[in-house]
């Protein structure tokens, strides 16, 4: 029997039981749609986060922070005070030591504290970051760029640079502050009892252009930058949160060698995180999430598969006599098998195709709800994440995998009924009522 005849025979059998075939297909549709929706949202989320991280991302930088062992995520820029059990402290002037290592072009210390900035009776909670303006601008040359005003290379103590969202927190024309405004900088020093509010007047010399990212690595829209020397005196410390190291290039060998050299220089009391390592950790985390979500969705497909098996067995019972006729007319067992498999694969294909389509629609609807609600990733100003939007991502790999998975499950679960049909004895099948 020719392939197209097998196909059209299977089709005619499906058409005979439209409702039943439709419901079976629906099972596959739900399974595939769940997989596609979950995976495309996760992948979209991953892409969005990676994209944000890469904004102004310098691949040739290392972040050194106190604390041996953990090269933890975010330990660099937003880590705590930096004291470790051993009492090791990462000091601002350690940069000189790092600068002498091979492959290191330059390095700079960062001191940061949670603080407040007040102007016209309005207060914003911000992160106050002490950096060397000139060095910072050279390492993050694409993001630490002024939109208004200029970033001073030899700043005076009261000069500050603010991120875009500090200047325009409400996403409209109303500005919190702009260049040449004098704002009150403050932070709560809790090392004394009772805690005291330290303040000083800061003069806005530049507003950064919008960066977008989370600011986990590098400049952020929601930070306020002050000169490192001012930070030392304002925060009353020589200890820095992290040291950003700019390497000669971003070869993996350079990154590895410099990492080892820095660790050795501080007797393993520091952790060194490369920007690329952060990305790879992130991508690992997402792989696990995807596997988990995909696994949950796969269970629904498994249920659909059992549905297919059920319907094929019922169909086998109903069509025993028909199979007897086909065999009496000279159809081979393997052709009978093929017809049954084909019916199931058609259901799997149609279900898979509709499932991919509806999964994609579902993912977009979910993304739209996220955007509209805004509470999770956007809108919440104090979260200061920079209003990220998720665009569901349907990669060809996911599409093909979903289709293969749908068809595969259909075929596998139809295998047993199809095999039984192919083994029916013609005499007995013809006698079947």
């Amino acid at each position, binding site marked *: *029997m020719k392939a197209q005849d097998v196909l059209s025979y299977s089709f005619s059998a499906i058409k005979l039981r439209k409702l039943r075939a439709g419901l079976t297909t629906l099972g596959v549709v739900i399974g595939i749609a769940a997989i596609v929706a979950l995976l495309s949202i996760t992948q979209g989320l991953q892409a969005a986060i990676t994209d944000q991280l890469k904004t102004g991302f310098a691949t040739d930088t290392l972040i050194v922070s106190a604390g041996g062992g953990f090269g933890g995520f975010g330990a660099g820029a937003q880590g705590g005070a930096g004291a470790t059990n051993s009492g090791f402290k990462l000091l601002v002037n350690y940069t000189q030591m790092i600068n002498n290592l091979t492959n290191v072009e330059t390095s700079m210390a960062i001191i940061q504290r949670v603080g407040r900035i007040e102007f016209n009776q309005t207060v914003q909670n911000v992160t106050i970051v002490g950096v060397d303006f000139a060095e910072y601008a050279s390492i993050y040359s694409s993001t630490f760029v002024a939109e208004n005003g200029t970033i001073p290379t030899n700043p005076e103590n009261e000069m500050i640079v603010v991120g875009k969202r500090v200047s325009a927190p409400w996403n409209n024309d109303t500005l919190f502050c702009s260049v040449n405004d004098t704002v009150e900088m403050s932070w709560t020093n809790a090392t004394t009892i009772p805690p005291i509010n330290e303040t000083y007047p800061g003069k806005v010399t530049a507003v950064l252009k919008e960066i977008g990212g989370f600011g986990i690595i590098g400049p952020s829209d929601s930070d306020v930058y002050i000169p490192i020397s001012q930070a030392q005196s304002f925060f009353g410390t020589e200890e820095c949160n992290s040291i950003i190291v700019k390497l000669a290039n971003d070869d993996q060998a350079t990154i590895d060698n410099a990492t080892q050299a820095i660790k050795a220089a501080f007797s393993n009391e520091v952790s060194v995180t490369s920007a690329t390592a952060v990305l790879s950790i992130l991508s690992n985390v997402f792989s696990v999430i995807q596997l988990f979500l995909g696994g949950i969705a796969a269970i629904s497909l498994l249920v659909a598969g059992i549905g297919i098996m059920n319907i094929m067995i019922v169909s086998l019972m109903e069509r025993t006599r028909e199979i007897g006729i086909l065999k*009496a007319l*000279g159809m081979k067992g393997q052709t009978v098998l093929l017809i049954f498999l084909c019916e199931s694969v058609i259901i799997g294909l149609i279900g898979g195709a509709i499932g991919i389509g509806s999964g994609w629609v579902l993912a977009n609807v979910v993304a739209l709800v996220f955007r509209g609600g805004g509470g999770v990733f956007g809108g919440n100003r104090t979260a200061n994440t920079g209003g990220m939007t998720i665009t569901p991502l349907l990669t060809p790999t996911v599409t093909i995998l979903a289709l293969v998975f749908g068809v595969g499950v259909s075929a596998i679960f139809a295998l047993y009924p199809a095999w039984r049909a192919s083994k029916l004895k013609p005499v007995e099948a*013809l006698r079947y009522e």
Partner: protein
Amino acid sequence: MDEEAEMAPATTIVEAVNLKKTYMLGKVPVNALDRVNLKVESGDFLAVLGPSGSGKSTLLNLIGALDKPTEGKLLIEGVDVSTLNDDQLADLRRRIGFVFQFFNLIPRFTARENVELSMAIAGFGKAERRKHAEDLLETVGLRERMNHRPTELSGGEQQRVAIARALSNNPKFLLMDEPTGNIDSKAAGEIIGLIKRLNEEKAVTIIMVTHDQRLAGQAKRIVQMLDGLIVQEVVN
């Protein structure tokens, strides 16, 4: 072609040698066929008569390669059927034209599609099958009804479709199981005429089980069966 068939020397198409088929009825073995010997030659028209349970259908199933004998041999054109595997049996069945008492048409297919089905199974292309199916339906006088489904056809018409289907792969012989057993007597008369015409004009070899005395009367040979044995053979 008719003349050729008449002039060709008669060859043995089916030969049963000590054919035995035993079924287990619970734990009791029952001999449905008990050492049956039979020979059918090309151009023959054989009717097998006998009461229910005499082994007619069992004999027919064995000749049709639908079943295998317990003992003895069944030769079709000299080939021992019990030596064939399932695929070879399937190939053999394509060249045997089955006509059943209950027609056994596929309900969702039209008359023409039913006739085409056996040719599709044999691997013929669409255009070829269609033309041949129409010719065959013409032969059985159903050309104008070819796009009707079995439920829209009378019993006699359905049986004629079944006969057209049986003829479609140029069979070695037609195997009929009570072909008039389920249709009214007027339609049965037409079927009998058709069968006789096929045998006489087209030299189609026919092996038939029947209760219908009228139909049996048209056969060239009549074999009477009882309790799994051939008890009488009459040549008309």
